[in-house]
């Protein structure tokens, strides 16, 4: 078995700032990995580079597709990369506005990836959209409403449904519960946890919420100043942190 995604020796500088300083990271099929760190640690940059949304200045990202072929994500032609992103991958943004079409109904948002994949049967698309609304615990009767009619937590659910409808193998999430009320966060994490387990997804997500990392992740990667300072089993990193920065992160959270 090979990793589903491999970042190799990734580097990216913004002026004098090293956003990524020789970072390597592998993700295995079915594995959930959290990237934690404070703002400016490079965690979101790492996610975007691994997801093919941002070009590294050095290093490469390899994706191993379902047939086992390795693809250099940043060397792919744009058409191939887009296909990959819509068929094999999903990306859940922190801000629903970045991940949803706000002028398109909930059903249309979910159906878009099906249509992009060649779906041309209106009834089937609606049925799939209704099914996925139920799976993310939304009322399918509201499928013709625009995203702005839904609460922040519901918009995130919609984003998740929109990503998962084509059964991707790999999902990236950037602070998926950021900016939500605590109770809403907990329910959303819960939903993500059960969907991920049920679908056997590989997930790479960025969070500054240690509790979310413990709940969802099999493995935690700690980033600081563009480098990975510690990584390992989620419970080991949190219960036996080695690096001073990890100890600080863990100590700043009450009863994670």
């Amino acid at each position, binding site marked *: 078995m090979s990793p589903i995604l491999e970042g190799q020796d990734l580097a990216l500088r913004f002026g004098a700032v090293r956003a990524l300083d020789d970072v390597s990271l592998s993700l295995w099929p079915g594995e959930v990995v959290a990237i934690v760190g404070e703002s400016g640690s490079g965690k979101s940059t790492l996610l975007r580079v691994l997801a093919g949304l941002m070009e590294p200045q050095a290093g490469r990202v390899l994706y191993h597709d379902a047939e086992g072929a390795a693809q250099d994500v940043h060397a792919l032609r*744009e*058409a191939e990369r*887009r296909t990959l992103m819509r068929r094999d991958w999903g990306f859940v943004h922190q801000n629903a506005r970045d991940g949803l*079409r706000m002028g*398109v*109904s909930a*059903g*249309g948002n979910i*159906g*878009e*990836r099906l*249509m*992009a994949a060649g779906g*041309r*049967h*209106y*009834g*089937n*698309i*609606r049925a799939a959209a209704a099914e996925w609304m139920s799976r993310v615990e939304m009322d399918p009767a509201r499928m*013709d409403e625009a995203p702005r009619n839904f609460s922040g937590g519901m918009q995130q659910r919609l984003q998740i449904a929109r990503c998962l409808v084509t059964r991707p193998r790999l999902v990236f999430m950037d602070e998926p519960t950021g900016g939500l009320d605590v109770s809403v966060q907990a329910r959303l994490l819960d939903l993500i946890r059960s969907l991920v387990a049920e679908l056997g997804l590989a997930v790479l997500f960025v969070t500054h919420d240690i509790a979310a990392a413990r709940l969802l992740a099999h493995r935690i990667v700690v980033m600081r100043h563009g480098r990975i300072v510690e990584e390992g089993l989620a419970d080991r990193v949190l219960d036996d942190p080695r690096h001073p920065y990890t100890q600080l992160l863990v100590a700043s959270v009450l009863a994670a």
Partner: protein
Amino acid sequence: MTASAHMQAPDTDPGYNFAYLDEATKRMIRRTLLKAIAIPGHQIPFGAREMPLPYGWGTGGIQVTASILGPDDTLKVIDQGADDTTNAVSIRRFFHRVAGVRTTTRTAEATIIQTRHRIPERPLTEGQVMVFQVPMPEPLFKLEPRLAETRRLHALGDYSLAQVKLYEDIARQGEGGSSYSHPVMVNHRYLMSPSPIPGFDNPKLHMSPALMLFGAGREKKIYAVPPYTSVVSLDFDDHPFRPVRAPHACAACGSTTSYLDEIVTDDRGGRMFVCSDTDHCAENQMARKAAE
């Protein structure tokens, strides 16, 4: 056409070059047209000139017509299917004045038909050229406001957004949602706005013997559908595209197949339906009289 200035008819305004535009501009537009014909449905940018009428009145169509017009052409101009509306009359008069060409209201006689909103009911023939006035050439415009991104989507042939729009139309309005500017796939490659013609006219684009040229003056784009090219309206398998017309007979000629305009006859809700294509309606009426 280089010597066109010598061939001007006697009543042509001598203050203007033949067909208003200078020869260099016409050559530039003709080069653009050749490119557009070579890549059916693909929008080609061109250096649209200021015209002596406001944007939205057909500046793109007029420039295309001016560039392809020769002294032997016969020009028909329709607006909403009618030859006698202000815009149609003005444009016809304009070309008569600056090019001295013969004008007509008869579809059968015309070599060039400039149009807004309609394709004539009478089947077009080889050698005829349709010139469409296009307000917004980009079919993805309402879905993706970034022009650079729409260009990329065209390049990639990624039209899921247009399909999403169609989905939304059906979800909101049921069958036959978008009745105008219903997007079409040209030659199985490019998504194209057929300009604001009713969906009823979309099938007339498919495998037409005539050449279809589209000019957008404000947006500075030209595109084309060459004769005998596949033009397919976007649809869903279970909601196939259906051209719709009002389910009435024309009050003037009795046609049950032509596209109808609804005319309000009084302020008590009285209304009637008549052919939108005035030439077609007149022909029908004459044929009916002849038969009687």
